[in-house]
């Protein structure tokens, strides 16, 4: 079977959903799901051994013939788009309803369909010009989705930052594609290894796609955009569109000749993103902002794998490069799945309580048991805990690093430090998610809104369940998904062809299954034992204090305090405090806030400087005609002087 028909059906369904999105929500959901399923089918056909699909038409768009291609790498990312896009569509149906959001729900559906469609086209486009067009289209769709709730000032600010940063990326890509086209004579994209003079273009690729992927320090737009967008949009942005940046990096690092040191730079940026992403996450009090910073961390883990794969390719030592790349690819899927799940969970909390402030939440497990359980699953997965999917991909990356160490090449020292820092990242992520789960879902509610929370409905719950099931499936049976990873890997570097799954992966899967079964059985048994053995409920022990209140609980800030203390050199937390001063102190307060340091301490001052200099230049233009005439006179005089003295032609 060829993917031709499913892709045609997907395109037709997406166009239909674009058309009916405004008027008929039910038909919109049905057509979107049909489109997503058809595209998923096409991707699965390609990944399970089908040949690459390629389509050229003589139809000209912008003077260029249409050229679409679905190979292993694009199919790999298309699967993620379809799964998260489908789950998000179902979720949005309940989360962003016409009743609750009469101003924006209709437009939101159309932009959502447009976003899915243009993201799919980005993955398929095989012509530089068309790639730029659909790339811009998806950026615009994303902008309107982020600003759906644009009555609020911070949403508009986040949208503005997003579109500004995105256009910086687009500018780099524009330069990249035009230079490429000028050099090769056409806009067609494909392997270009035999042109070593194109190698410096990789830096443009790294900037353009790296900014979209949110690697440190180009992540400045990411936390605000992901925190302020509606949660289903945050899930798509974090789960899929960041991965489109990774897709671009993988696509063109696989096709272009690489400059010396490309792999090192990617790996170092990856390590920096991983460690600093999670450090910033620990300093956050806003649930969705925290999740957004964790995206920076996970993009870092993906880039560590990709960076070492690039180093391996440049050194011609495939064994550990394959493992690192396999880990990076699998982490693309895994992060897409659990991050979407976590954003859906955060959305359910926001929907039920109306706040993202962790210091106002707490005790939600009582009213929202499904959300709490599924969020905990996602939290364990993102912390890389066995037996879930996050561990499998991190394990592959680690194995790549360990093998790189054993190879004793020039990569070994870097691999050692990367492995240690990856371990630190894992432990920090665990600390961060212990904090989130504990503060948001456990203990006593810290505000009336949290006490009155309610569980989300079947659509939101169902989409979370589907993503949670996918996380568990990859964790328990990683071997099943291995051929897809290999297929994508072979497209990236055909020289590394090979299909056999590492034996250890099978063993790991079996261990995970056993672990999950025994843990479930024992947990059930212990709970039963506790119930049957007699259960008394009493106050939490507080040194004998009989009236504990919710405000006496440990807060998110205190929980992370030890670790954020180690990172003050980069976090630069802002403290506002009023200490009790007199013998009978009346008020005392303490507030701490972690700013987006790179944005507020580097980019904004730099931008301010540029604005100041521009303002100086601008004072030349003031509307006084006499002065303008003087400028003209000086100009003409200077020119004549130049002609008189220079004498040239």
């Amino acid at each position, binding site marked *: 079977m060829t993917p031709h028909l499913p892709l045609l059906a997907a395109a037709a369904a997406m166009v239909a959903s674009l058309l009916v999105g405004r008027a008929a929500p039910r038909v919109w959901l049905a057509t979107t799901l049909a489109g997503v399923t058809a595209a998923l089918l096409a991707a699965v056909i390609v990944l399970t051994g089908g040949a690459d699909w390629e389509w050229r038409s003589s139809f000209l768009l912008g003077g260029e013939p249409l050229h679409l291609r679905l190979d292993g790498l694009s199919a790999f990312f298309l699967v993620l788009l379809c799964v998260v896009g489908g789950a998000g569509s179902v979720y949005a149906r309940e989360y962003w309803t016409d009743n609750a959001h009469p101003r924006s729900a209709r437009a939101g559906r159309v932009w959502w369909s447009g976003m899915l469609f243009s993201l799919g086209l980005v993955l398929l486009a095989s012509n530089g010009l068309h790639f730029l067009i659909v790339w811009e289209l998806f950026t615009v769709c994303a902008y309107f989705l982020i600003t759906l709730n644009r009555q609020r000032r911070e949403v508009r600010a986040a949208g503005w930052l997003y579109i500004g940063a995105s256009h910086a990326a687009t500018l780099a890509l524009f330069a990249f594609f035009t230079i490429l086209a000028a050099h090769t004579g056409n806009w067609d994209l494909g392997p270009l290894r035999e042109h070593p003079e194109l190698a410096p273009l990789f830096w443009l690729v790294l900037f353009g796609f790296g900014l979209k992927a949110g690697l440190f320090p180009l992540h400045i737009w990411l936390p605000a955009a992901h925190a302020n967008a509606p949660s289903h949009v945050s899930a798509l942005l974090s789960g899929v569109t960041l991965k489109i940046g990774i897709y671009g990096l993988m696509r063109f690092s696989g096709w272009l000749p690489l400059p010396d040191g490309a792999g090192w730079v990617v790996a170092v940026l990856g390590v920096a993103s991983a460690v600093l992403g999670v450090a910033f996450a620990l300093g956050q009090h806003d649930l969705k902002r925290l999740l957004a910073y964790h995206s920076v961390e996970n993009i870092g883990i993906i880039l560590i794998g990709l960076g070492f794969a690039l180093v391996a390719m440049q050194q011609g030592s495939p064994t550990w490069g394959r493992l690192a790349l396999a880990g990076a690819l699998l982490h693309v899927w895994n992060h897409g799945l659990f991050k979407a799940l976590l954003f859906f969970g955060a959305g359910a909390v926001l929907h039920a309580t109306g706040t993202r402030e962790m210091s106002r939440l*707490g*005790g939600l*497990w009582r009213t929202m048991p499904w959300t*709490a359980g599924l969020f905990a699953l996602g939290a364990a997965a993102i*912390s*890389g*805990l*066995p037996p879930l999917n996050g561990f499998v991909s991190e*394990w592959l990356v680690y*194995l790549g690093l*360990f093998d790189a*160490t054993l190879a*004793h090449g020039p990569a070994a020292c870097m691999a050692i430090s990367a492995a*240690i820092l990856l*371990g*630190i990242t894992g*432990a*920090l992520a665990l*600390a961060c998610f*212990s904090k989130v*789960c*504990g*503060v948001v879902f*456990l*203990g006593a509610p810290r505000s009336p809104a949290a006490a009155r929370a309610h569980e989300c409905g079947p659509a939101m719950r169902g989409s979370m369940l589907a993503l949670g099931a996918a996380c568990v499936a990859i964790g328990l049976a990683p071997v099943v998904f291995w051929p897809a990873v290999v297929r994508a890997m072979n497209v990236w570097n055909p020289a590394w062809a090979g299909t056999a799954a590492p*034996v*250890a992966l099978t*063993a*790991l899967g079996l*261990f995970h299954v056993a*672990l999950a079964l*025994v*843990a479930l059985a*024992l*947990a059930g*048994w*212990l*709970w039963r034992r*506790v119930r049957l*053995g*007699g259960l*008394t*409920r*009493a*106050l*939490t*022990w*507080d*040194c004998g204090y009989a009236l*504990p209140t*919710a405000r*006496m*609980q*440990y807060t998110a800030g*205190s*929980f992370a*305090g*030890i*670790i954020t203390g*180690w990172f003050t050199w980069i976090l630069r937390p802002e403290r506002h405090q009023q200490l009790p001063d007199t013998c009978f102190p009346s008020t005392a307060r303490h507030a701490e806030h972690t700013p987006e340091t790179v944005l507020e301490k580097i980019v904004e001052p730099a931008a301010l400087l540029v604005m100041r200099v521009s303002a100086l230049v601008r004072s030349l233009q003031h509307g006084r005609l006499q002065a303008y005439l003087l400028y003209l006179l000086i100009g003409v005089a200077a020119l004549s002087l130049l002609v008189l003295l220079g004498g040239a032609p």
Partner: protein
Amino acid sequence: MTLILHLILRLALWLLLAPLLPGIINKVKAWVAGRRGPPVLQLYYDLAKLWKKSVVLSQLASPGFVIGPAVGWVALVGAALLMPLGPAGSALSFRGDVLLLIYLLALARFCTAWAAMETGSAFEGMGAAREVSYAVLAEAAIIAAVLSLIVHTGSVSLITMLAPSPGAGAALLAAGLFTVLLAENCRVPFDDPNTHLELTMIHEAMVLDHSGPPLAVILHGASVKLLLFAVLLVQAVLPIGEMTPPAAAGALAAGVLLVTISVGLVESLLARLAFRRVPLLLTTAFLLCVFALLVAWKGDAT
């Protein structure tokens, strides 16, 4: 069939021997202090008693309060099963199993921290925060130690990588891993298992509200973790792979006993550190492991 029998025997060994270690430590402490002290088998009596008791649960606690300790216990026992036991080899071995072991310990930590946050008590939150924060440094030290073994033996699976040769590297590794053992198992000088002041505890603060069977599971899991670290330390330092099986088994047992006694001696002779000094000591442990790694690297290169 033999595989299952092997597995059951190994499991029985771990589960039955583990509670002995805290008893020995307490005996050593009592001996140094000139007391008679509790019997060596005290933890067994405690566990049996706790298992029969009914449970008092905090009003705020969810079923996760009980599920957490259960899953944490399974993770620790799973990690123990991955650990090779001298001449007996390991029950399951594959490339990269050492990472699974490290992350199973992390899973146990997540479960304990989860259960601690259930009660909404500030003490337990404090304990959980300390546990997950100090674990960051301990994990870095463990990975550095593992890397030194990997570089030294050229292997990525536990069964073959625990083949040290005597020298400066082994000594550094012993010092580093012993410090990590003290930190991860919440012993003096990082934490005082005997203190009665909630504000100064780590592990004990996290389990303040547990009682009955879940507390028994937590205590037993903690003793398995202690044994696991002791076995790891002994095998990472003593070249028992080169001995005959009976000698190796004897050396392993003697090594674990020695480690246990050392823990007891440290606990008797040292005071608990102030919390702000804890990261310093853990960083020292990390550096010791890094130096061991450098020695392995240098020895391997020549």
